[in-house]
Structures are given as structure tokens and as C-alpha cells.
């Protein structure tokens, strides 16, 4: 029996069947793989947070996370407290690392209260405050985990991006860029928050001056760099009251 594939009714039936089959197939695959994917994302977050506070397996030049299998254990070991800052006060919440910064930013835009997660880590007797931040690069989102001490001096940072240009903007996740932030001050000399600018006109390319609130930009990645500057300025600023409070209580 030959089918007449030119008939309109055949075309319609064919498309309906095709959509049902493809839809069912994709839905099944998504459902089956979802738990694994969520778990991967959770581990990655823990690795990122640990990386920022210096718990990583960096060798001379490349950035390496702790092993996936150890991430949960090390996270438990090094992160002593997870805080959620909302309505001006910090509450302990051991699910803080599951807060989606993107959703919180959208909430803030809609005029609602934004919850700010903050992780308190301790390594070799030193306290680290790690904040997740998020902003826009050239093509898509950029985000970071920034570890600070109680004076808002950066102790370590991990940057990542969705789709910056390979070889240019994508280099924000390279060691030579991320390591420049270590020791850099977020406050100016009189204690006002100014952030850290990714500067093209930096007279300090070797980054010897840690109080200039600037790090050297990546050539060819101006807009990504500006996005990172803006992200640090806008998002870390929100944590300033917390650190002021911290000083008062200590």
C-alpha cells in the first residue's frame, strides 16, 4: 500500500504524531536525567565556594577544584556557617547554598526583599566570608564567588561565565585574572565601598598596589571586564551593612 504523502490530511497527521513522539522522548530523557543534573550543579556550587576560600587543587598555572567525590565532605569541614541576610539581619540557614542568586536579583527588581546568601568558612584559624554574586558579561551571565575577610579585603575569588568569547572574555576564569583579586581591597582608605574595577588604564599591570581598588583588564575583553566591575560594585555593595555590623559587634 503506497501512502500519498502529498495529501494535506497526511501532512497534518504526520506533524501531530511527530510532535507527540518527540515531546514524549525529550520529556522522558529530561525526567530521567534531572536528578543527576541537579546533583552535578550542587557539587559544582560547593566546589566553587571552596575554591574561593583557597580550598582547591591549584597547581602552578591552572585552576583546579577539589575532587567531585570529596566536595560534600570538604564543604562540611570548612564551611562553618551559612547565613542568609534579609531585612537587615543575618540568619543561620544550612540551605543557604541552594539560594538562586538569579532569582533573588529578579525579586529585588520586582521590589521584593532580596535574600543574600553568605558562607562563613574557616581555614587555618582564619575566617573567610564568601559571597556569591552575579552580573552580565558580553554575551550572557557572568558570576563569581568572592571570599573576603572581615575588612572586606578579597582573599580569593572564583569567576565563571555562561558564554563569553573563548580566548578573550572567557579568560576571566583563568588563574592570572582571578589571582589578581587576592589581597585587593573593596573599600577605599576612608572605609567607603568602591568595589574593584577591571581597569584598562591601570598603571599597575603587575598588581603590586593592593589598595588601588583596581586590577588589570584582559585585552580584547572590555565589555566582559566592565560587566565584572559592575557585578562587584552592585552585588558586593549589598553586603557592606553586614560587615559594618560585624565590626561593631566584635
Amino acid at each position, binding site marked *: 500500500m503506497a501512502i500519498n*504523502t502529498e495529501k494535506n490530511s*497526511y501532512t497534518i497527521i504526520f506533524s501531530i504524531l*511527530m510532535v507527540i513522539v518527540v515531546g514524549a522522548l*525529550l520529556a522522558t530523557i529530561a525526567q530521567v536525567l534531572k536528578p543527576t543534573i541537579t546533583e552535578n550543579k550542587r557539587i559544582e556550587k560547593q566546589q566553587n565556594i571552596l575554591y574561593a576560600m583557597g580550598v582547591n587543587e591549584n597547581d602552578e598555572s591552572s585552576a583546579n577544584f577539589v575532587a567531585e567525590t570529596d566536595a560534600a565532605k570538604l564543604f562540611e569541614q570548612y564551611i562553618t556557617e551559612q547565613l542568609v541576610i534579609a531585612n537587615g539581619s543575618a540568619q543561620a540557614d544550612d540551605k543557604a547554598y541552594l539560594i538562586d542568586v538569579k532569582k533573588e536579583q529578579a525579586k529585588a527588581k520586582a521590589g521584593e526583599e532580596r535574600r543574600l546568601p553568605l558562607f562563613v568558612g574557616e581555614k587555618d584559624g582564619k575566617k573567610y566570608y564568601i559571597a556569591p554574586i552575579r552580573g552580565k558579561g558580553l554575551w550572557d551571565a557572568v558570576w563569581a564567588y568572592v571570599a573576603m575577610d572581615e575588612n572586606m579585603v578579597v582573599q580569593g575569588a572564583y569567576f565563571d561565565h555562561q558564554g563569553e568569547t*573563548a*580566548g578573550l572574555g572567557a579568560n576571566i576564569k583563568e588563574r592570572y585574572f582571578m589571582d589578581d583579586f587576592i589581597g585587593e581591597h573593596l573599600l577605599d582608605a576612608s572605609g567607603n565601598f568602591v568595589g574593584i574595577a577591571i581597569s584598562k588604564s591601570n598603571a599597575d599591570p603587575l598588581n603590586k598596589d593592593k589598595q588601588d581598588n583596581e586590577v588589570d583588564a584582559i585585552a*580584547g575583553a572590555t565589555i566582559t571586564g566592565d560587566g565584572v566591575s559592575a557585578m562587584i560594585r552592585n552585588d558586593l555593595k549589598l553586603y557592606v551593612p553586614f560587615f559594618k555590623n560585624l565590626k561593631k559587634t566584635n
Partner: protein
Amino acid sequence: MALLSKKDSKLILDPLADNNPITIQVLGICSALAITAQLKASIVMSISVIFVMGVGNIVISLMRNIIPSKIRIIVQLVVVATLVIIVDQVLKAFSYQLSKELGAFIGLIITNCIIMGRFEAFALGNGVWRSFLDGIGNALGYGVILIIVGFFRELLGSGTLLGFPVLGDPIAKSGVYSIGYENNGFMLLAPMALIVVGIIIWVQRSRNKALIEEN
């Protein structure tokens, strides 16, 4: 007794050189520009395209007699899109790091004109086995050029290969940098991909004069 008949092996070998999808048919230039700044991205993109083309050609070839010709382009798009989503999801679940690095590139496979081109030109009119070989052959031909371009762009642009600093350290001035060599940042920008592809086309045509079109 060869594994493939002469006609079949032509399907694999032709696109590698004399009928290369990028340098001869000038298809798939868009992704050749976008992702070749690093060798690693080129390699993974090639592998993903080999998978999508091989399987896609099989699926289209199997359905070639029942696809209504009026909506055949839409059907082809649906097949590519489905395969790409499957690749994306599987990578996310089982090779998370890799999928993060590839990010947008996986989605870009959908827009790769070589794939639609081969569905339309070959798989709709040929049997399953031959379509499969044609898909693999063209994807390989595409991959070879991608890898060559990626090799030169990463080497000359960043001084690294697959992330390893093969030319020394540009900041500490070791290796070739100690005699005044500098990385050429221009290699990382899209226009240089076109120029590298152009050079490959030039080399290929001067080696094989039959490829030169007559005016």
C-alpha cells in the same frame, strides 16, 4: 576484501579533501569562526557534530519515504533539534565540566548548515548505510578543518595548545618569549578564522588544480 566498497569509502574520503564541506562547499563557516579560538573547543565541537550528523542522517534516511515533502525542512529541523537537546542533556548529566565549557556551542550545532545541507541533499534520497557514511564523512571533513584552524589560532593567539603553554610563559618571558616573540591577539578574533580558512583553501587549490573553478 576491503571493509567498505569503493563507492562507500568514497563517501567518507571525499569530504575530507576534494569535496570538503568548509573549504570547497563553503558551508558551516559560521561555527568555524565562532569556536576555533581554542583547540579543545574545536575538537569537542567536531565530535558532537559527528554524532549529530551520523544519527541524524540515519533517522532522516529511515523516514525518507514517509516525510511529507511540504514540511520536510521542518521535520529536518525537529530531528536536529531533538538530537542536539539529547546530546546537551546527556553531557550535563555525565560530563558536567565538559558541558559547561561547551555551553552555547552545543546549541549552535542546530544552526550548522552542513547538517541541514546533508539531510536535504543526501539522506532524503539514499539508503540508511550510505547516508550514515555520508554523514560521518562530512562531519569528519568539517572537523578536520576546525581542528586545523583551532590549532593555529590557539598556538599563535594564546601561545598554548589545549591549554598547555607550549611556547613558554609570556609574563615571565621564558621560552620563545625571551627572544622577543609576542602573542598575536588578533588571531583570537573572528576575522582571523576567515583568513586561516582562506589560506587552507589556497593551499588546497594550488595542490589540486582540478578544484579551481573556471571563469
